[in-house]
């Protein structure tokens, strides 16, 4: 029985990654950028799980757990920063944060 080939899984991961990447670049609303980041993280998780499954090792799932943890911490902090941004700028436009220009 041939299960799903690893290359297909990796292609799925790449597609999801690229979709998330486009979202990060294009969207102005910081919330959407965070959501796109989640999509990208998810895609990376897919890749790891696929790799672990292909080599029949549980390390892939362990890595996935760590990524999950990372995503949780990142979302918490990101949303908190978003709240601060909303308070200071009254909007979530990421282009307002360009003090490092030049």
């Amino acid at each position: 029985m041939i299960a799903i080939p690893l290359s297909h899984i990796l292609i799925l991961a790449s597609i999801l990654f690229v979709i998330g990447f486009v979202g990060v670049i294009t969207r102005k609303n910081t919330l959407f950028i965070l959501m796109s980041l989640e999509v990208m993280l998810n895609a990376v998780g897919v890749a790891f799980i696929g790799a672990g499954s292909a080599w029949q090792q549980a390390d892939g799932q362990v890595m996935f757990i760590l990524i999950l943890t990372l995503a949780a911490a990142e979302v918490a902090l990101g949303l908190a920063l978003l709240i601060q941004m909303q308070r200071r700028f009254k909007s979530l436009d990421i282009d307002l944060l360009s003090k490092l220009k030049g």
Partner: protein
Amino acid sequence: MISTFIELNPLQLTFYFAALLAIVASVKVVTGKNTVHALLYLVVSLLAVAVCFYLMGAPFAAGLEIIVYAGAILVLFVFAIMMFGLGQDETLHAPSVNDRIYGTKVNKFNLWLGPFLLALLLLTELVYAINSGEIQAKLTSNTIDAKQVGILLYGPYLLAVEIASFLLLAGLIGGYHFAKPEGVGLERKKDIGEHG
């Protein structure tokens, strides 16, 4: 191609369907205008990916994906949006008619053109890279269950678990600090200043 499609067994069929669903849902997340709708689409995407995980022989990961990712992280998203009013429509800050990009007037096409091209290139590249290696490995359908993951976690990866807990602690404290309402803590600072 169609012949290979018909020769698929149910497992593979389900996998490809779930993958397609994940992709479509992600696209709708990225291009959405309404915040909550986008979040819901993200949930769908995550659930679809969980299905994929199960079909890959990683039930524990699938469970975690649903419980933690879709069930905790995204719920956090939703609650934050609802409680702090972050979910204003993007159309408020969408590019207006008068904006200019690359010297011409903004419309849907040229706003997405650059990023789309870049992403396409990246994708093509990744696909090539994947296919060029000897990654066409034969998979067995043996599942890796929770017990194996647990043994690994509390064995070689123990330190990583502890560090992950540090990370969560940092996230917790940072989240509290940044999100606390205005005025809280200032009086305390004043008290300390008087005494110290």
